[in-house]
């Protein structure tokens, strides 16, 4: 018994000790980090920046579920998690919490077990920022996702997005994004028409994206969703990812603390505007394009994807050109997938993955161009 306790204690020490040198030296973990300064600090900043999103997740999912259930005449969701709740405004928070906490706990447990497993087998320390993928992944989930679904998706994202590459700064794309994409591919139904135990009307829980794809902005406004509602994040979708306002706050903080590369965010907005403008000329009849770029920027998970997934400091492109490319391609592709493929769930995650996988090529070209420029300058110099 004692031996077993000692083993677990040693495992936990490995998690805790990992943060220690960084805590003392401050900059020792920064070797592979491409943006920002110190790895633990950057991870903490990302967690802080996304706190408004978590607040929105909790409140919004409760709000949406309560309203959807009232729409079919039920007082509250007949589910063991909230049978005891009063049907008042305050219940929004409690309903949301009851949805959020189990998902967060599952993701965190999954990540911790996998990180410790890899650390033990590979004889390396667990990274101080191990919580961040689980946290961001949970924000990306719609309420009502099964815990096992969340666990498998998180495990896939973490192992194939981060652990096999050797951790932060060495991987290609945000593990939270890969987890979300796994869930999207394996269980697409979780992302359209947010489920809630099958008791609420599907029509009321339709995501803003589905409404827009069906009937343009008019359909959104008919459902009582204006630009302001989308900006604040009062829409049924991946609940933590809907609030552009919270993302804006987070982005401002992250840029101020220089944890993310601002060129990715600026490039993303430019790509979005350019994509809407260009596709608007090619396909003027599309219902999706009745919404201008300011609608697309606040719809669905776009803002969240840009700030927290595309600009993940663990895999930022190394060159300025690469950063502009990553943001611009992600923004333009997100619009392109929305306009050309309205039958499927919102394609922001695929757009970011595609842009991130071609970012090394953009880096390569930027380096090649810089080298050529320097060579020419040196040749011109007598």
């Amino acid at each position, binding site marked *: 018994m004692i031996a077993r306790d000692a083993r677990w204690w040693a495992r936990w020490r490995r998690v805790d000790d990992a943060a220690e040198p960084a805590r003392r030296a401050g900059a020792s973990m920064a070797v*592979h980090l491409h943006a920002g300064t110190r790895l633990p600090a950057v991870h903490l900043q990302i967690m802080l920046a996304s706190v408004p999103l978590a607040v929105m997740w909790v409140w919004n999912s409760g709000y949406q579920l309560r309203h959807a259930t009232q729409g079919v005449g039920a007082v509250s969701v007949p589910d063991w998690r909230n049978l005891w709740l009063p049907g008042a405004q305050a219940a929004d928070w409690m309903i949301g919490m009851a949805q959020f906490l189990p998902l967060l706990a599952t993701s965190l447990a999954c990540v911790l077990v996998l990180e410790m497993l890899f650390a033990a087998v*590979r004889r390396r320390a667990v990274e101080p920022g191990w919580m961040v993928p689980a946290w961001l992944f949970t924000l990306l989930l719609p309420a009502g996702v099964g815990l096992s679904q969340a666990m498998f998706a998180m495990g896939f994202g973490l192992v*194939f997005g981060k652990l*096999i*590459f*050797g*951790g932060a700064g*060495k*991987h*290609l*794309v945000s593990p939270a994004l*890969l987890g979300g*994409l796994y869930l999207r*591919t394996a269980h697409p139904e979780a992302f359209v028409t947010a489920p809630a135990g099958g008791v609420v009307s599907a029509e009321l829980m339709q995501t803003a994206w589905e409404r827009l794809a069906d009937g343009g902005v008019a359909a959104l406004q008919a459902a009582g969703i204006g630009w302001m509602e989308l900006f604040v994040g009062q829409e049924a979708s991946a609940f933590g990812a809907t609030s552009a306002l919270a993302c804006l706050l987070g982005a401002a903080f992250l840029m101020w603390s220089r944890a993310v590369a601002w060129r990715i965010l600026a490039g993303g907005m430019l790509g979005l505007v350019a994509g809407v403008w260009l596709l608007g000329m090619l396909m003027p009849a599309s219902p999706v394009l009745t919404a201008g770029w300011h609608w697309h920027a606040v719809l669905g998970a776009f803002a969240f994807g840009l700030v927290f997934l595309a600009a993940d400091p663990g895999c930022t492109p190394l060159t300025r050109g690469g950063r502009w490319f990553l943001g611009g391609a992600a923004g333009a592709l997100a619009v*392109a*997938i929305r306009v*050309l*493929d309205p*039958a*499927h769930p919102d*394609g922001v*995650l*695929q*757009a970011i*993955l*595609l842009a991130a*996988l*071609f970012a*090394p*090529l953009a*880096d*390569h070209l930027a380096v090649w161009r810089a080298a050529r420029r320097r060579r020419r300058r040196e040749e011109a110099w007598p």
Partner: protein
Amino acid sequence: MTHYLGIIFDAMFTGNLALTYLLGMCTFLAVSRRVGTAVGLGLAVIAVQSLTVPLNQLLFERLLTPGALAWAGLPEVDLRFLKLILFIGLIAALVQVLEMILERYVPRLHAALGVYLPLLTVNCAILGASLFMVQRDYSGLESAAFGFGAGAGWALAVVGFAAIRERLVYSDVPAGLRGLGLAFIVAGLMSLAFSGLAGLGG
């Protein structure tokens, strides 16, 4: 015009030979360690595809389809079963010519591509494009557009893949996964990303 651009776009993105159909994987994995070589290979594939698909289409239409030999007094002959042999023969001949040209004018690229250049003869992406051409009933111009698009899509995939593999040199990969193992996983991730584009085509 839009029609042909649509065919090129579909062949490059929604039906990318390497990442949607997973064709030509042997060359894709083998000649993607360096971006420079991958660019050369990509250009070779574009050249071969743009030539073989329309030429194969011409041969198929003029010699193999039922009734094609009516001018020789054989209107009821149907030689479509010969298409594999004919396509491979034409591809082999073209690759030979390409190899001679490269050896004469770009010997460095010729050496870098090594055995994989003659292997383009039996590359399934190249034969696959010609077979898709038959399956989708493309006309002469359509097959030229499709051949170019298919080659360009494959080239784009292999160059992007090579850039990723160059960066992965700096990663800390478990010993058992180094090299081809990780390459397979990254190719899978790229394929997952391209699956998002699968709904874009008409």
